[in-house]
């Protein structure tokens, strides 16, 4: 085994055991302001820290005014695609009832670790966000879909909902107005693809979680039970109480014009202080994040940085050449990747790159729902090829086959980062795809990045062919 636990004992541990991995720092806090309190999940603490004031402020205005306020804030969706939330709400057709809000709490993108903390540490903020969204977009029922593997989040949100119903924030005649909406807590049962919004709706209807054919591109027109449906990510909704209470101007004062506010970033892997950080959107760079004292404090053991995944497992990889890219969607796109769900995974110079890529290819191959052939067959094929190469039994022909299979999932130029070392220019994001959703391309992205940026690591493996190598545990070997 190339990696050993004992190397990692000097990693810093979060000072807040109830919010593992979270470090507050001295920065603007919009969504994590209550993480510092051990009882941040209770309604008492929520009331004591300005809770439900955003809802009161919203109810004092007309729904259209609240929707405009959100539109003016340019709040970008935090699920991965980065689409402005206010614009998305505007896609609902007028005069069609009922219409629904579905909260996407099915966070399972590799490396992503923010929605779980938001649900566990501050569930009332999410509930208030849901209520504001329902009021502003005129939605008549809310389903809060939480990933099944998060029972603590489920428990915390269930208690918070009971408290909010009892206090008159949820249900009929909210705060003495005509506004009334139910929030129903729903549990998932373990399927990554359900994070895709139409698959989420299928799952909520009691079906297998397979994405729907597009168009329509947004379920805002035809969604749950065939009705207009807004699907928003947990972090997106958690921003709404602040926007409703302080106004869109206060929100856009933080961050940059095109990427306002803050966003939560989880950095994991080979850094000194892996953690979840609420960063100022737009202006913070990856160098700040990986090397800054208030963030990750550099690479572990004084090693060099080899590569990092900038936006969740589906994002093409960056190397040290891209450290000065900022958290600004178009900038990351031009550099050949995306910011996705706000997950950064860092690999230092000791990393076995093919094995690291394998862990992601296996993930996406495993999570294919089986609806589109290029993903169902191609993903599994890629996984077997990469496994064979990592095992030391691969050939040059296998490397070519990987590219061929990849072409059938993502035809044409595949985005990748530039590399000074290899004299490569960047190919900008996004890719073309032959599948309905992003699971298929995501199986190809990590192995394509790894082979493009570190060809020598693969050449070394395929030329070693014939040498006896240990069989990995997963393939079934004992001692």
């Amino acid at each position, binding site marked *: *085994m190339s*990696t050993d*636990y004992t190397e*990692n004992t000097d*990693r810093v541990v979060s000072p807040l055991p109830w919010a*593992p*991995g979270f470090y507050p720092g001295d920065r603007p806090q919009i969504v994590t302001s209550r993480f510092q309190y051990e009882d941040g999940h209770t309604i008492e603490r929520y009331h004591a820290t300005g809770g439900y004031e955003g809802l009161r402020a919203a109810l004092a205005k007309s729904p*259209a005014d609240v929707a405009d306020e959100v539109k003016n804030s340019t709040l970008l969706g935090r699920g991965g695609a980065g689409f402005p939330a206010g614009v998305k709400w505007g896609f609902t057709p007028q005069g069609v*009832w*009922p219409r629904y809000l579905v909260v996407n709490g099915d966070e*399972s*993108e*590799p*490396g*992503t*670790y923010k929605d*779980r903390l938001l649900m566990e540490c501050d569930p009332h903020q999410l509930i208030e966000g849901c209520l504001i969204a329902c009021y502003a977009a005129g939605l008549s*029922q809310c389903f809060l879909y939480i990933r*099944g593997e*998060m*029972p*603590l989040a489920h428990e915390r949100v*269930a208690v918070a909902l009971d408290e909010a*119903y009892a206090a008159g924030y949820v*249900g*009929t005649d909210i705060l003495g107005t*005509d506004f*009334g909406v139910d929030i*129903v807590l729903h*549990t*998932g*049962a*373990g*399927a*990554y693809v359900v994070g895709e919004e139409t698959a989420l709706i299928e799952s909520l*209807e*009691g079906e*297998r*979680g397979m994405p729907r054919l597009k168009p329509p591109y947004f379920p805002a027109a035809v969604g749950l*039970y*065939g009705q207009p449906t807004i699907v928003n990510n947990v972090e997106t909704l958690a921003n709404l109480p602040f926007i409703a209470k302080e106004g869109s101007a206060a929100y856009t004062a933080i961050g940059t014009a095109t990427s306002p506010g803050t966003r939560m970033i*989880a950095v*994991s892997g*080979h850094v000194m202080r*892996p953690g979840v950080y609420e960063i100022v959107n737009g202006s913070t760079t990856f160098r700040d994040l990986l090397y800054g004292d208030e963030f990750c404090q550099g690479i572990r053991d004084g090693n060099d940085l080899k590569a990092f*995944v900038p936006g969740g*497992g589906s994002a093409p990889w960056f190397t040290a050449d891209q450290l000065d890219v900022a958290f600004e969607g178009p900038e990351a796109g031009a550099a050949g990747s995306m910011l996705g769900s706000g*997950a950064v*995974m860092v*690999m230092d110079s000791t*990393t076995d790159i093919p*094995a690291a890529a394998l*862990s*992601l290819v296996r*993930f996406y191959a*495993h999570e294919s*729902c089986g609806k589109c052939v290029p993903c169902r067959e191609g993903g599994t094929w890629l996984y077997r090829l990469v496994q064979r190469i990592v095992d030391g039994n691969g050939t040059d022909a296998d490397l070519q086959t990987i590219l061929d299979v990849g072409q059938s999932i993502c035809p044409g130029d595949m985005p990748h980062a530039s590399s000074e070392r290899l004299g490569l220019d960047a190919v900008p994001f996004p890719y073309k795809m032959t599948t309905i959703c992003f699971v298929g391309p995501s199986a190809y992205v990590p192995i394509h990045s790894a082979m493009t940026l570190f060809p020598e690591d693969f050449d070394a493996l395929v030329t070693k062919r014939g040498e006896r190598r240990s069989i990995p*545990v*997963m393939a*079934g070997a004992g001692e």
Partner: protein
Amino acid sequence: MTRLNDHNVLVAKEIIARYPKKKSALIPLVHLSQQQNGYVTDDAMRHVAELIDVTPAEVYGTASFYEMFRFEPTGKYLINICGTMSCQLMGADALMHHAEHTLGVRAGSTTPDGLITLQHAECQAACTEAPTLQVNYRHRYRVTPEAFDQLVDDLRSGALEAVVPPHGTLARNRQQIPADRAVGVTDPDDVTEGPAWIQVTPA
């Protein structure tokens, strides 16, 4: 007898009433049956089908898509070791190797005493605290070989009875919507007018 018991039938009816269409309650009800029996039995799926007016095949069709549902007897404790990138980088393969040796079973199987099932799992959203595992979906962070052995000892001795409920139990408390505060549901096919409070006018 592995149909839902009387108490759970009441819980099931309450859950069904929250959705505009009964089939939406399918996943929560299969969870409920797994909580009762430790795994999803054929009888339970038939019972769920009766409750939501679909065929047993439809229940199995949906349930078989989702990884958390297990269709054969499972250990009282299900240990899922994460192997996706962040954990892989921090030694998940070695942890799995150690776990297989400690328990004396391969990933995907159950110890002979029926207490512990070991499984390989994908990302558990605790990436900064790698390597991680979940025991009955309760997280354990930065798991060392010693910590793993201690966990197994504690599970065997019953020291964690209060912390880790048996397999199948997810949240230990359930949302209770008070009848006097609930807006209630309407069949989406039967609605022509919006609720009174919604007066969305184009901006």
